[in-house]
C-alpha cells in the first residue's frame, strides 16, 4: 500500500509540474493572439505603419510561445490516460466529449490558420491574412472555453449518474454539463487573467524600451495600450474574482475555508487573515494576524454573518491549507498591485508623463512577469483547494491514478523536469532576447528566407535573397556547430 501512495504522490507532482509549465504559454498566447488581432485590425483600419511594426514584432514572440504551448499541451492530453487511467475510464463519458470538442473546434482552427498567420502575409490578401489572425485568436478562446468547462465540471460536477460499470454517465442535458455551476465564473476569471498577463508583459517590454529611449514611438504605443488594459481590466478582474469566490463558497465551502485559513467556525463574524502559518496537524492558524469580521463582510456582505470553518469538515475530506492559503494571498496581492499600476498610469496620463515617468516604467518592468505568477497561484488555489478529490465529492484523487509502479512514474517525472527546464528555459531565453530588441520601423516578422550567397546554382532566384534572419543573428561566418549543450 505504501508504495502505491508513493506512486500516487509522484503522479500528482508530475501532473502539477507539467500543467503549471504548460499553462504559462496559453496564459500568454490567449492574450497575445487577441492583441495581435487588434494590432492587425488597427493597421488595416488606419494604415499606420506603427501597428504593422508592432504586429510583426509580437508575431515573432507569439510563434515561439505558441510552439511551446502546443508541445506541452499534447503532453497534457495524453497524461490523463497515462497517469490517471481510472479517472479517465470513469469520467471519460462526461468530459471526453468536451475535450473532443476542444480539439475539433479550437485546436484545428488555431493550427490550421497559424501557418498562414505566421508565413502567409505575402501569399494571401490582407483581408484573408487578418481573417487567419482572427481565427487563431478565436481558437485560443474556444480552447479555453472547453478545457475550463472540463475543469469546472471536476470542481462542480452535475448531470451524471454512476453506471453499473463504475463509469459516470451523462444524464442531464449536455448544456447543463458544459455550463456547470462554476464554469461561467471560472471562464471569465481565467480569460481576463490571460489578457492581464499579456498586458503586463507588453507593458513591461514597452517600459523597458521607454527607459532606454522615451521617444521610441513603438514603445510608447505598446506601453500606452498595455496601461489602458491594466487600468480598465484590473478592476474588472478583481470584481470577477470576488464573484468566483462567492460561487466557490456556495459549491466548495471547504476550499474557501482553506483560502481564508478558517480552521474554526465563526458564529458571529469571521476575521480576514492577512498573515498566518497554517498548521494542519493542530488544525489552527499560527501567528495569525487578521482584521475582525472582514471575511464575513466580503463573503456574506454582513459583518456578523456566521461562517463555518474546517472543524465542520471531516479530516479526510480537507484540503491541505498551507498551499491554498498562501497561493490565494499571492494571487490577490498581485491583483491589487496590478490595480495600482493601472491607477498610476491614469495619473501619469493626466499629468502628461506617461512616457517619461521613470519610476512608473521601472514598476511596470518589475510587474512584467507578475501575471504568470498570479495565474499559477490561482490554479494552485483552485486545484489544491479541490483536494482530496479529482472530481469534487465524487472521486478521490487516491482512487484515480493508473496502476503504475513508482519507479516508472519517478523516471518520467525526472525526464519531464529536465526536458522542460532545458527546452522551455531556452525558449524563454529566446523570447526575452527578442523582447530586448528595440521595436522599430520596418519590422521583419517571421521570415524564413535563405541568407548569404547562393550555394546551389539557380534554385533560389536572386530577388528573393534576403537577409531575413534575426537582426541579432551572429555573422554568417559563425555557423559552425557549437552544440552539445
Amino acid at each position, binding site marked *: 500500500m505504501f508504495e502505491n501512495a508513493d506512486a500516487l504522490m509522484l503522479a500528482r507532482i508530475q501532473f502539477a509540474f507539467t500543467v503549471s509549465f504548460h499553462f504559462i504559454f496559453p496564459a500568454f498566447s490567449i492574450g497575445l493572439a487577441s492583441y495581435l488581432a487588434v494590432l492587425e485590425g488597427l493597421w488595416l483600419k488606419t494604415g499606420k505603419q506603427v501597428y504593422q511594426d508592432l504586429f510583426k514584432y509580437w508575431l515573432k514572440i507569439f510563434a515561439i510561445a505558441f510552439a511551446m504551448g502546443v508541445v506541452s499541451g499534447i*503532453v497534457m492530453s495524453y497524461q490523463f490516460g497515462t497517469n490517471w487511467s481510472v479517472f479517465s475510464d470513469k469520467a471519460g463519458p462526461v468530459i471526453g466529449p468536451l475535450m*473532443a470538442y476542444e480539439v475539433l473546434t479550437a485546436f484545428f482552427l488555431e493550427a490550421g490558420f497559424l501557418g498562414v498567420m505566421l508565413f502567409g502575409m505575402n501569399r494571401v490578401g490582407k483581408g484573408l491574412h487578418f481573417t487567419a489572425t482572427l481565427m487563431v485568436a478565436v481558437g485560443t478562446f474556444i480552447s479555453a472555453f472547453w478545457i475550463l468547462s472540463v475543469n469546472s465540471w471536476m470542481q462542480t460536477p452535475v448531470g451524471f449518474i454512476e453506471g453499473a460499470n463504475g463509469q459516470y454517465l451523462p444524464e442531464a442535458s449536455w448544456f447543463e454539463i458544459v455550463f456547470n455551476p462554476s464554469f461561467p465564473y471560472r471562464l471569465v476569471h481565467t480569460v481576463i487573467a490571460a489578457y492581464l498577463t499579456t498586458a503586463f508583459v507588453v507593458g513591461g517590454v514597452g517600459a523597458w524600451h521607454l527607459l532606454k529611449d522615451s521617444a521610441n514611438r513603438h514603445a510608447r504605443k505598446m506601453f500606452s495600450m498595455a496601461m489602458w488594459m491594466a487600468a480598465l481590466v484590473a478592476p474588472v478582474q478583481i470584481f470577477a474574482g470576488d464573484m468566483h469566490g462567492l460561487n466557490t463558497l456556495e459549491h466548495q465551502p471547504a476550499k474557501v475555508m482553506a483560502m481564508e485559513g478558517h480552521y474554526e467556525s465563526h458564529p458571529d463574524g469571521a476575521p480576514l487573515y492577512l498573515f498566518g502559518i497554517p498548521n494542519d496537524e493542530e488544525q489552527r492558524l499560527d501567528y495569525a494576524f487578521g482584521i475582525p469580521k472582514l471575511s464575513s463582510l466580503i463573503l456574506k456582505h454582513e459583518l456578523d454573518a456566521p461562517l463555518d470553518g474546517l472543524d465542520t469538515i471531516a479530516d479526510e475530506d480537507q484540503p491541505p491549507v498551507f498551499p491554498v492559503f498562501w497561493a490565494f494571498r499571492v494571487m490577490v496581492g498581485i491583483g491589487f498591485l496590478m490595480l495600482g499600476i493601472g491607477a498610476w498610469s491614469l495619473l501619469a496620463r493626466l499629468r502628461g508623463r506617461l512616457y517619461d515617468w521613470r519610476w512608473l516604467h521601472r514598476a511596470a518592468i518589475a510587474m512584467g512577469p507578475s501575471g504568470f505568477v498570479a495565474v499559477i497561484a490561482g490554479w494552485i488555489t483552485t486545484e489544491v483547494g479541490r483536494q482530496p478529490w479529482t472530481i469534487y465529492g465524487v472521486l478521490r484523487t487516491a482512487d484515480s491514478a493508473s496502476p503504475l509502479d513508482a519507479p516508472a512514474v519517478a*523516471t518520467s517525472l525526472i525526464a519531464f523536469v529536465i526536458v522542460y527546464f532545458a527546452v522551455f528555459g531556452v525558449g524563454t531565453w529566446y523570447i526575452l532576447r*527578442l523582447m530586448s530588441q528595440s521595436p522599430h520601423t520596418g519590422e521583419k516578422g517571421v521570415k524564413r528566407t535563405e541568407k548569404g550567397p547562393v550555394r546551389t546554382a539557380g534554385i533560389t532566384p536572386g530577388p528573393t535573397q534576403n537577409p531575413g534572419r534575426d537582426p541579432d543573428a551572429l555573422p554568417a561566418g559563425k555557423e559552425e556547430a557549437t552544440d552539445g549543450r
Partner: protein
Amino acid sequence: MGVDVDLTVIWAFIIAFAVFAYVVMDGFDLGIGVLFPTFEPGQERDQAMNSIAPVWDGNETWLVLGGGGLFAAFPLAYAIILPATYPLVIAMLLGLVFRGVAFEFRWRDKAHERFWDFSFTAGSFVAAMAQGMILGALLQGIEVQDRAYAGSWWDWLTPYTLLTGFGTVVGYALLGATWLIWKLEGKAQAHARQLAKHAAIGTLALMGAVSAYNLALDPEYAARWLSAPEIYLTAWVPLVTLGLAVLLLRSLGGEGQSLPFWLSIALFLLGMAGLGLTIWPNVVPPDVSIWDAAAPQRSQAFMLVGVAITMPLILAYTAWAYWVFRGKVGTEGYH
C-alpha cells in the same frame, strides 16, 4: 440496440480516420526529421524545413484528435493502452517536444542551429519509433483485468514491437522523402528521390516482415488471412499492396513529382486496412472489443454532431492552408 452498434462502429472508423490522417500527415513531417542529417546544412535543410513549417502544427493536431477521440468515444481503451505503453508514450511526447520547438528555435539562434537540427532529428526519430512500438504493443495483445492494464511495465518491449517501430520509422522516411520530391528541385530533389527509393524498398520489406510476424502472433490472426472463407474478404489487401508497390517503385525511377507521395499514402492506407482487418472488432486485443470499450450512446451521439459539423470545415481550411503554400518551396521564400 441497432443504433448503439452503429454509433460505436462509426466512432471506430472516425478514430481510425484520425489516426490515419495523423500517420500520413505528421508521418511526412517526422520522416523529414529522420532524414534531415542527410541534407546539406544551409539552403537544403532550410528548404526542407520550410516545406513543412506552415503545416506541421495542423498535422500534429490529428494526434490530439486520435487521443482525445479515443478518450471520449472509447474511454476504457484509452485507460488501458496508455498505462500499458507508459514509457513509450512518455518518450513519444518528449520526442515531439524536441521536434516541435526546433521549428522555431533553429531560426532564433544561429550559433546553435546545428544543435536544434539534431533535436529535430532525434525528436522525430524517437517519436516515430515510439509510435510504431505502441502499435506493435497493441497488436501483440495487452493483458487486462478489472478494466485496467494488468501486465508488467516492460511488456511493450519485444522483438515484434522493435520491428513495428523500425517499420514505422522507415515508412515515415518514405513519406518524408516523397513529400520532398514534390516540394524540392534540382540537386536536393535528386537526393530526396534517392532516399525515397531506399525507403520504399525498406518499407515494403518491413511491411512484409510485420505481416508475416502477425500471422505467427495469434492463430486467430492467421485464420483471418489464410483460411477460407475469411481469405475471400481479405486477400485483396496484399494483392493491391503488391500492385501499389510496383507503381511506387516505377514512379520513383521516373520523373514523377507528386505521384510518389500519393502512392506512399495509398500504401499506408492499405497497411492500416490490413491491421484493422487483423484486430477487428477489438480495440485492445485480445479481449476488449470496441463495444466493451465504447462510451455510452449519449456521449457518442453528442460528439458525432460536432464531428459532422466541424470535420468538413476542418478539412476545407486545412486544404486551403496547404493550397496557400503550394508549389516548390525553393522558388519563393516565406515573408
